[in-house]
């Protein structure tokens, strides 16, 4: 698992073609097109209400745009049941933490493995055969993630008792447990202090490098975004106003206007 994977950054993983999304009268996204390349770290930024979260939900398939189409690995993607998204290899974290409060950190991460387990009620009831072996097998995987995220000490703690930063980390762990190809992070660093942010950045980059996971993230902290992302997409009032490397985007006039609120 720790061996560096070679990833071809030019291969398009998801191709989103000028989509329009609106709730009732309110237009969330208009004519946005976007390519997600395999193995890249893509940041979606923009002022509040720019449609970032909507974009993320379109990518994850929770929202189905009224117009436009989404290609996943070269194939047109139809409407899918929410629980099938994960099976496509897409995992996500939530803006305001959505951990399973009643469980420990370890259990949360193990729950992320559920999708990779086989359901056999009898065996699980007896905790024998498959029921047992798979628990133990996946426990190993979970422990690897725990080591990777450096949260060994809190694995048995109920997540509700963990500090905010660690909760975010556990949630990332849960997403990783799915072994996704595409990882969506909705403001992974919101409300974190500097150290926590630095840790989180490190984890995100490690995930991207070690597992070759494609990452799409929404973030407010410009500094962070510019540091970690290969590519940045800027949305404003549901319209894509810029798309390029951090440096290109930084120098884009529209972006500056949008952020300074001028124009």
């Amino acid at each position, binding site marked *: 698992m720790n061996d560096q994977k070679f990833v071809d950054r030019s291969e398009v993983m998801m191709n989103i073609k000028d989509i329009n999304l609106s709730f009732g009268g309110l237009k969330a996204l208009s004519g946005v097109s976007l390519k997600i390349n395999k193995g890249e770290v893509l940041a979606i930024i923009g002022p509040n209400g720019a449609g970032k979260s909507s974009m993320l939900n379109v990518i*994850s398939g929770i929202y189905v745009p009224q117009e436009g189409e989404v290609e996943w690995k070269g194939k047109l993607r139809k409407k899918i*049941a*929410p*629980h*099938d*998204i*994960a*099976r496509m290899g897409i*995992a*996500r974290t*939530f803006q305001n933490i*959505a*951990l*399973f*409060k*009643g*469980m420990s950190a370890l*259990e949360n991460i*193990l*729950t*992320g493995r*559920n*999708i990779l*387990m086989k*359901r056999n*009620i009898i065996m*699980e*009831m*007896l*905790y024998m055969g498959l*029921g047992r072996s*798979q*628990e*133990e097998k996946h*426990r*190993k995987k979970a*422990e690897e993630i725990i080591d990777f995220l450096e949260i060994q000490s809190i694995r048995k703690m109920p997540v509700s008792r963990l500090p905010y930063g660690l909760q975010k980390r556990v949630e990332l762990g*849960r*997403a990783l*447990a*799915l072994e996704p190809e595409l990882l969506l992070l909705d403001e992974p660093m919101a409300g974190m202090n500097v150290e926590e942010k630095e840790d989180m950045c490190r984890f995100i980059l490690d995930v991207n490098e070690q597992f070759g996971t494609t990452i799409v993230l929404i973030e407010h902290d410009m500094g962070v975004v510019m540091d970690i992302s290969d590519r940045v997409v800027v949305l404003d009032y549901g319209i894509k106003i810029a798309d390029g490397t951090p440096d290109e985007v930084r120098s884009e006039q529209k972006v500056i206007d949008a952020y300074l609120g001028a124009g």
Partner: protein
Amino acid sequence: MFYREAGQFKTSYKKDQSILPIFQDRIAMVAMLIFCFIVIPLFANDYWLASILVPFLALSLAALGLNVLTGYAGQISLGTAAFMAVGAFAAFNLQVRVPEIPFLIAFLWGGFCAAGVGILFGLPSLRIKGFYLAVATLAAQFFIEWLFTHFDWFTNYSTSGVITAPPMTLLGMAIDNPLSKYFLVLSIVVICAFFVRNLARSEIGRAWMAVRDMDIAAEAIGINLMKTKLLAFGVSSFLCGLAGALWAYVVLGTVEPQAFDIARSFEILFMIVIGGLGSVSGAFLGAGFMILLPILLNNVGSLITGGTISTETIAHIEYMVFGAFIIFFLIVEPNGLARLWQTGKEKLRLWPFPY
């Protein structure tokens, strides 16, 4: 001092994932089982066996069932008694129609019928939540009670609409005295508790809890809400059905549908609220509490007051104490007796150090 993990290093995840990772807990469990299977039978008199322990165990099983649904999977149900009724009447009917069927098979059949009905009335849970769902289960409660009261076929056309359980024999041994009944119920309940515990700590249990804690996130990590909820309804109702069969066969011997009225459903709901949602031990603690409290008040009342206060007054006070206790528990420890026990253990674990 004695309750410590220190020095018990888990050399493998296998060990760490065994049902009771901590050595002392294993000892305690063994002691518990010895107590239940050997000590109690030696010392308890028929009154305790027949009219406290056996009903207690039967209702614990029902509470366990409801705890699977409400405690683990977070779906509230007020129809528990109805599912018990299904279990009881299904078991009875199978034996009446096919007398050579052994009663244990009939019990299982009762459980499965209940599971079927449970899943049927669980369907609304796919669209509705909270007490909206509770209402759906109330529909089950009233409908099923009516069904059994009303169609004589279910009671095998007994003039009084009361079903009388056929005598039970296991391996040629008649189960008719309090002791044998106690052993029967105890064994069934222990096995079921073991199963539920295992489910709870396996993939299915996690799926349930995920749905309970945050259904959106659960979906996002690929948990099929529908399957998971219905499975919870199925397993839960199965256990309730089994409990119902025990109630009819072992506890009362004869029941009318009214024995499974809405009051019973609430009683069992309280058991898990007081005992602790989402824990196996909670079901037992809650059941014990709910069974003992009325008898306690009833006795202590007449004992202390020496009959100067009418049983009427005592009975009213009983109601009040009951309600008060429920509120008290919800305020002080929403996770019930089981959690109190847990925190107690954690303290003990660290003792004498404050943290």
